[in-house]
């Protein structure tokens, strides 16, 4: 019997290339479940992938149009795809380094523009593919392969960053919160506007080693233990929240979506000349 989501997997693309125990599998399945439940036709979906482990979620495994681009730039490329054909459902798979270090500028501007692309940011709090180097999201004090004495810098809160930039749908879950992640993905896929979904993902190989939890199941349990919902967090003191992962749906508002504004502009420009 075929897996119910097998129709979304590109023929000949397996075996996959993720490390054993990687969170990418959970995110891949969550996304495909959301696509299936929302009922978007495969031919309408374009996945734009950055460089890093997260890019290999859709590329080449999803049987959809896929643009696997340069490091940090998937949101810029996706902006061109969406403006080029607004009928397409353009989904970016990016990592924390891809989206917030080298590509941070594109992230905040896509949120500001409210272009209707959906950004799934796989945040494993480290550079996985290149060897476990410190990332802008690595918690302070963490020992990585390039911070052997502990990370001196403060980490980015990516969801807060996107909220500040004007993101109209911003949610964060972990690879423990599968049902809620699928629900948020479905919501993102049914809205016109820009959406940012941060998924804290367990990387037992690199981040796990940094914090001394190398078993993937233990890492997921650790996510469960360390997470508090935004609703709960609102009633907690800053001290109590420190070190926790605040999860939930942070923003859900509508605003004029960019490709719709272009469509209106085209109508107006052609009315004036007639």
């Amino acid at each position, binding site marked *: 019997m075929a897996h119910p989501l097998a129709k979304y997997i590109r023929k000949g693309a397996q075996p996959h290339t993720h490390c054993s125990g990687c969170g990418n599998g959970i995110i891949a399945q969550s996304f495909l479940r959301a696509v299936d439940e929302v009922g978007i036709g495969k031919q309408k979906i374009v996945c734009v992938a950055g460089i890093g482990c997260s890019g290999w979620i859709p590329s080449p495994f999803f049987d959809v149009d896929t643009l*696997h*681009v340069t490091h940090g*730039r998937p949101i810029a490329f996706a*902006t061109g795809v969406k403006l080029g*054909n607004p009928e397409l459902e353009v989904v970016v798979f990016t990592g924390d380094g891809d989206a917030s270090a080298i590509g941070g500028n594109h992230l905040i501007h896509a949120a500001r523009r409210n272009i209707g692309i959906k950004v799934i940011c796989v945040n494993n709090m480290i550079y996985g593919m290149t060897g476990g180097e410190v990332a802008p999201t690595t918690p302070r004090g963490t020992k990585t392969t390039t911070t052997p004495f502990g990370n001196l810098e403060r980490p980015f809160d990516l969801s807060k960053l996107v909220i500040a930039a004007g993101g109209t749908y911003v949610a964060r879950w972990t690879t423990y919160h599968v049902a809620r992640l699928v629900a948020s993905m479905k919501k993102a896929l049914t809205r016109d506007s820009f959406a940012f979904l941060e998924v804290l993902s367990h990387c037992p190989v690199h981040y796990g080693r940094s914090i001394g939890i190398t078993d993937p199941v233990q890492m997921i349990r650790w996510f469960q233990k360390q997470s508090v919902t935004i609703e709960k967090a609102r009633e907690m003191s800053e001290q109590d929240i420190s070190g926790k992962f605040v999860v939930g749906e942070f923003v859900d508002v509508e605003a004029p979506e960019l490709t719709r504004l272009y469509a209106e502009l085209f109508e107006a420009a052609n009315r004036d*000349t007639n």
Partner: protein
Amino acid sequence: MQGNEACALGAVAAGCRFFAFYPITPAGEIAEKMSQLLPRARGVYIQMEDEIAAIGSVIGASWTGLKAMTATSGPGFSLMQENIGYAVMTETPCVIVDVQRAGPSTGIVSAPMQGDVVQARHGSHGEYDIIALAPSSAQEMFDLTIRAFNLAEQYRTPVIVLADETVGHMREEVIIPEEDSLTITNRKASSNAEEAALGFLSPSVAPMPIFGKGFAAHVTGSSHDEHGMRQASAPEAIDKIVRTINQKIASHTGQISSIEKVMMEDADIALVAYGSCARTAEYVVRKARKKGIRVGLVRPIGLWPFPARDMEEALKLVKRVIVLENNLGQLFPEIERAVPDDAEAIFLAPEILATLHRPDYVMKHVTQEAR
């Protein structure tokens, strides 16, 4: 009309329906004009957050089937290099206009220089070939922008219009032909799944599996096979890519890169110049002819791939070649190679770089060589 405006008109006439830009002098007028023209053509003008994003969005738009362009100058052109390499690697048609200014670095924003000639050829990492055209008039800003789109569409590759500040900002008569009389090339797009499955790496240029048609195209800047599927560890795969994407351009050099000859029939001396330098050169040629000096002009219109064979043919009877560039000799080595063994090649920069060659300065050298 201004050269930069002519460039925008040429782009829209060629069918450009996506233009992304980051503000920079001296390319600004191209963007202003595009922002006026495109909405009526139901095309997108977007100002991106930087030049990296501008070329990135252009490549994304091209995969939806649109003809797409960006324009910039030296600093922005430097930022675009990585994604230009991506466009080469993924065989993505697009046009990049570089209105060169004086550099390195910020340099002088509104002074003419031809400092990006080698960058246009070799600016992105890896082994690749590229097409670059050098307009020398406002008319050619129109004509060569159309030609750039046609070549990009035909060969599925980024094409660079290597203009300079003088050509971009000069105002002169531009004849805009009737739409029907223009030659416009459109890319071959995959028409069925079998064609789409072989969307890359054909020496004769594979049809492009445009997004949204149900082909599940896989486009990657990583080493890949003719199906677009990643072959990240096989040297044979990258060998095939490099040879194929270079060969599809190099083997058509004669059709891609033309040269113009002025009064070369009986010339003993040839001036070789391109872009704005060719204007001074042609002026000097005509003036020297009145003095009875047998001098002509050879003007490469396509700089890359370098039209070596045509250049050799054009120079085969001359005794002296004077190469005029507004740099310290970026195209000179290519031209020197095309000079006959019994002739001599001399390089002549303007007395002061980032200014145009003064005609009497060039004339002095021509007269000297004629003795």
